[in-house]
C-alpha cells in the first residue's frame, strides 16, 4: 500500500516512521511536505512525532493550519486512514479531527520511558492484529500527553468504542502509577466516531526492531496494512460532515 508521511517544520520522527514503513515493512512511502496541498493516491497518512513549529503556544496549534492539513481533512472526510503519533495526535486534536485535547503532563516534566498500553478495541483499522486486552510495551516521550475532554465527550468516546488504548501496568491493570501523564480515564489512544482517524501518544515507530525498542509497535502498522489489503472491511458510516475550521 502507499503511505504518506508528513514533515512539518519541527517534525522529528518523520524519518524513523518512513524508515520503519519502507525498510522494515517494505511499504511504499511518499514523503509529504507541510506546504503540499494534495494527498491523492495514498492509502494512509501519518502525522509523525516531534515538535512541529516548536510546539510554541500549544502543541500542534500552528501545524494544524499548514496547507497539507486541508488535504488531510478532506482525505479523512472521504474515509481515508489517518494515523497521528504523539505530536501528530496533538495536531489531529487541534484540527478537530479527534475530540478532546492534550495538556501538560501531571508531573509537568517531559517524560521519556517505556509504558504499557492495553488494547481496548481490536476490531479497528489500527489494532486488528491485536487481541482485545493485549498489553503492549511501547516508549512514550512527551511533555504534553495528558488527554482531557469534557464529561459528554468522554461518555460518547466510551459509547462509540472510540477509546482504543489505555495505559496499564504490565499485567493490564489501570493504576495511577501506570498512567504516565495523568490522562483522563488513562486514555493513550482514541479514534474518531467513524473509525478512520487514530491518534496515540506512545511511539509504535520506535518499537519495531528488537535491537532498538522491541517489536510491539509493528502491530499497528501491520493492522493498517491488513485493513487496506482487505483483511478487514472498512467502516463505511457516512461522515458526520465535520465543519472545516479556517476560512
Amino acid at each position, binding site marked *: 500500500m502507499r503511505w504518506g508521511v508528513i514533515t512539518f517544520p519541527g517534525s522529528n520522527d518523520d524519518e524513523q516512521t518512513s524508515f520503519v514503513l519502507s525498510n522494515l515493512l517494505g511499504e511504499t512511502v511518499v514523503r509529504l511536505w507541510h506546504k503540499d496541498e494534495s494527498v491523492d493516491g495514498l492509502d494512509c497518512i501519518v502525522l509523525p512525532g516531534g515538535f512541529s513549529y516548536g510546539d510554541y*503556544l*500549544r502543541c500542534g*496549534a*500552528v501545524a494544524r*493550519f499548514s496547507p497539507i492539513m486541508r488535504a488531510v481533512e478532506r482525505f479523512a472526510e472521504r474515509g481515508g486512514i489517518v494515523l497521528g503519533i504523539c505530536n501528530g495526535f496533538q495536531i489531529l*486534536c*487541534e484540527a478537530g479531527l479527534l*475530540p*478532546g*485535547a492534550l*495538556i*501538560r*503532563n*501531571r*508531573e*509537568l516534566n517531559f517524560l521519556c520511558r517505556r509504558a504499557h498500553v492495553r488494547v481496548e478495541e481490536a476490531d479497528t483499522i489500527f489494532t486488528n492484529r491485536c487481541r482485545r486486552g493485549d498489553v503492549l510495551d511501547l516508549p512514550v516521550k512527551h511533555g504534553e500527553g*495528558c488527554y*482531557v*475532554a*469534557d464529561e459528554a465527550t468522554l461518555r460518547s468516546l466510551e459509547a462509540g468504542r472510540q477509546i482504543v488504548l489505555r495505559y496499564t501496568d504490565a499485567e493490564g491493570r489501570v493504576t495511577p502509577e501506570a498512567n504516565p501523564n*495523568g490522562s483522563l480515564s488513562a486514555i493513550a489512544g482514541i479514534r474518531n466516531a467513524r473509525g478512520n482517524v487514530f491518534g496515540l501518544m506512545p511511539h509504535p515507530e520506535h518499537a519495531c526492531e528488537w535491537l532498538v525498542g522491541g517489536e510491539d509497535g509493528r502491530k499497528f502498522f501491520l493492522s493498517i496494512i491488513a485493513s487496506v489489503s482487505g483483511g478487514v472491511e472498512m467502516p463505511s458510516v457516512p461522515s458526520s460532515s465535520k465543519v472545516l*475550521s*479556517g476560512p
Partner: protein
Amino acid sequence: MGWLARVFVTPKSGVLDPQGKAVQHSLHALGFPEVGDVRIGKYLEVRLADVSRESAEVRLREMCERLLANRVIEDYRFEIDAAPAG
C-alpha cells in the same frame, strides 16, 4: 498610531491546571500559607497596525478563536488600547 491588544488565555474552569496546582504548592512551601487557588494561563501582547477599533476587535476575536486559544480547554478575553504601531 496603532493598537496594543492584551490577550488573556485561561484554562476553562473544570479543566485540570497541573501547573497552577504545582505553583500553589510551591508557594505554600515557600511560606505563603495565605495563598488559595492559583490558575495559570497565557498573557499575550499583540500589536496591530492602524485600523478602526471595531475591526481591530473583530480581527482579534478571529485570531483568538482560530489560533490563540483552544476553545476545548481555554477561555480568552482581550483589551485593546491605542498605541504607537510596533
